[in-house]
């Protein structure tokens, strides 16, 4: 029975993440359009796109690894989702959180890029491979400030689990945003790279790489990728809300917090052009890493 409960709860969580992620994505398109003085698509445009992709049949396939690529991507997003507490007290969203901690989550979250990269590799499209090399390079870039922020918090609060960090905030009554501000800054700067919006949209790089790893994918593949990306966006936002903003007691609180967090990469990106790959990598090893080091020093000092 317990397993059924988990599966059922997992599906509900997935649907929530899917809907929220898609809506946020649509909002982003609208915001970008308004800033560029266009009218822009409706907020629900992403659902239309997804439905269109879903209902299309593919005529071709590229072999075994190409099938597995999107599946790896989905594993990464959905399993990460299952290990992140959506609300403070489970409720409708039971999850496997007590079975894994932040370091597990770190590895789970990078798994998708590698899997997708392999799937894209088999198509033989040179643009895919170029996009992949850029994406992996950028990943090495932003993972450094990100792990620094996490390590700083682990040191400060003597726990490596997400629920542990949420409990700390509940008990002390202050959000980690204030309790370890430098870690928050480092993590937010790293999140700019994680979301891959401008100026860090070097993987897909519209008008440069013909959408990179996603080229050669259509129909259901693209639908799988699109939904996986939406879910993953929700995963990242919820994780940030859990770690720094004390988690959420109910859905409305969650939506407000995640939306505000989501606006940071979106608004930063909208006014920026695109970096070159090595510029992007070095950018992450500049100020974000400095903040990371300060965060660790602060954590050592404050314990």
């Amino acid at each position, binding site marked *: 029975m317990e397993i059924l409960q988990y599966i059922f709860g997992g599906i509900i969580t997935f649907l929530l993440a899917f809907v929220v992620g898609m809506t946020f994505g649509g909002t982003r398109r609208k915001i970008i359009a308004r800033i560029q003085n266009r009218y822009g698509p409706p907020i629900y445009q992403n659902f239309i796109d997804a439905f269109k992709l879903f209902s299309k*049949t593919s005529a071709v396939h590229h072999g075994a690894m190409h099938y597995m690529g999107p599946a790896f991507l989905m594993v990464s997003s959905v399993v990460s989702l299952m290990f992140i507490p959506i609300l403070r007290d489970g409720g409708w969203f039971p999850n496997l959180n007590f079975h894994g901690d932040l370091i597990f989550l770190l590895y789970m979250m990078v798994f998708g890029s590698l899997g997708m990269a392999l799937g894209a590799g088999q198509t033989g499209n040179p643009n895919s491979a170029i996009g992949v*090399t850029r994406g992996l390079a950028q990943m090495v870039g932003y993972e450094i400030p990100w792990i620094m922020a996490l390590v700083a918090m682990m040191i400060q609060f003597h726990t490596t689990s997400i629920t542990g960090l949420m409990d700390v905030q509940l008990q002390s009554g202050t959000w980690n945003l204030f309790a370890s501000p430098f870690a928050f800054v480092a993590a937010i700067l790293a999140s700019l790279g994680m979301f891959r919006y401008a100026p860090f949209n070097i993987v897909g790089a519209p008008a440069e790489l013909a959408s990179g790893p996603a080229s050669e994918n259509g129909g259901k593949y693209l639908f799988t990728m699109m939904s996986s990306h939406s879910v993953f966006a929700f995963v990242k936002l919820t994780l940030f809300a859990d770690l720094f903003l004390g988690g959420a007691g109910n859905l409305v609180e969650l939506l407000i917090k995640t939306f505000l967090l989501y606006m940071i990469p979106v608004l930063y990106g909208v006014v920026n052009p695109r970096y070159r790959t090595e510029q992007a990598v070095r950018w992450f090893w500049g100020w974000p890493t400095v903040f990371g080091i300060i965060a660790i020093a602060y954590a050592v000092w404050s314990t």
Partner: protein
Amino acid sequence: MNVIFLILILFLVGAIVTAFAGKWSSLLQDGLFILAVTIPAVLFFTQVEMNQLVGWTRGGIHLELGLTPFSYFFAILVLLLGVASAIYSVGFMHGKARKSYYYFNYLLTIMAMLGILFSRDFISFFVFWEIMTWASYLMVVMNGTRTQEIGIKYFVFSAIGAYAMLMAIVLIHAQTGNFLIQDFIDTYPSLAHGRQILIPILLLVGFSVKAAVMPLHVWAPGSYAYSPMSFTSVFSGALSKMGIYGMVIVFVTLLSHLPEGGLIRDIIAWMGAMTAVIATLWAIAQDDARKLLAYSSVGQLGYIVIAVAIGTPMAMLAGLFMAFMHGLFKGALFMVVGAVEKQTGTTDFTKVTGLIRKMPWTFLTALISIIALAGIPPLGGFIGKWMLYESLILSDHYLLVIVAFFSSTAAFLYAYKFLFGFFLGQEEEEWADVKEAPITMLIPMLALAVGSILLGAFPQLILKPINNGLISLGFSDSYGKLWETSTLFNEWGDKVVLQPIIYAIMGVFLTTLAFTYFRNRKRTRYVSTKDISTSGEIPLAHENLTFKENFFQPFLRAVEPVMKKQIDWYYREFGAGLEAIFNFTRRIYSGNGQTYALYAVIFLIVLLLLNGNLFGQ
């Protein structure tokens, strides 16, 4: 006869018989070779008793062999890889020249490694250590390519290590009066302080050479890359772990008595971290699979050194677990390279491409092993990485975590390059007729890959022998505290439970795969890698659009300052400097009688000048 002697003698006799059997029949030789590895292996696991000592005294020197729980763990790795790689070697060496030479050295290497693990005195230890070095040296120069450069490097560094170790052994004998390892460990705390520092450092130099710790690693990339691939899987997978074996013993039994022990350990941990980072960056820059894996081996050994140097119970578990995992996945990966080399004749990424449909099983092995290497759950690599990070954070080594994590993330780059380089990308006509590797090569490869999966789900399979070994070294039992059947804990009470993770991952993976695969498969047709959209143009059959050259150029540009000079450069400069000094010394001996007369006069003058000071008038 004691079974320990029997095992060693069987290897030795097996080596000689196998080497000569090639004169009569190649098939007989192959059969004998496999028997010569498997029979001692079976004997080892069924007959050898733990902690039983056999010894003899000749000329006042007492020598002892025996098995401890700690060496048992390493023996599992040696024999597992030894047997797997032996079966693989039969396929790999089929139709190649100098098979007898190869088999002979292979068996000697395995024997020497087991001998090292059996040794309970320094003389046997050193003798087996040298047999191992020599046999592997002969393997390194076997191909005859760049023997001068690669072979001499390996030889010189091994010699440095061996001399350091020999010096330590002489010092030890001077202190204790015999060569027994246990006697020395017992007397160590009562030694003079200078000796207490000098002996472990000399021993550590010897072991660091084999474990390829920076700056003593320069021999490793070349030697790993130019040995026959079937041997490299043992070389990198098991032989390098002998260094780790020695290091752990030095750290635990000697340095823990020393007030400066913590500092020495931290320094070595940092050396390990630097090894991991630099070797990883160089691995990313390689265009040859053999070199890529060779650098990667050096880097992975770096993590293991970090872990064992930190030396908390969890770090020890992590280091030894990673050592075992590295044996499994790197053994398999070198076998993959060997298979590709055998089937295509090259290991250059820029030449070979798109083999996934020709060598699917090889690809599967490579995929599983690479996932294990990258440390992604649920495979075994993750468990070692998880324990490493947790132990570093809990033992207050914050910067080491960052450095280790950096190189582990950067490892994704070469991991991808490896898979993409051989198996993905555009299919070329040149490689259209490549066949899958023979079954004798596939079975051991896949077996090692399955091992990676198994250890991911059931880490207790190997954590148990590790734990027993650590208990015998004086650690407390960590079962139930740091690990259970399939759960890992840290000391703050956080944990990872592996079973639900695996079910979740498999569930999501299969669901998504079913979603894209079923029904879709029959409706769609396979399109070749030429049938792609590149801005509306379709490449012609002869047009090669594969992106391989300068693969990670943007990333390498970003890390350029770190990679400007290889450590090699410093050694070359050092060598050149020495040569200049020697040249100068040579000029002194000009062969001219008058010059020598001048030297005599100068010497006398100096003597007179210094007279007052020297003899204290």
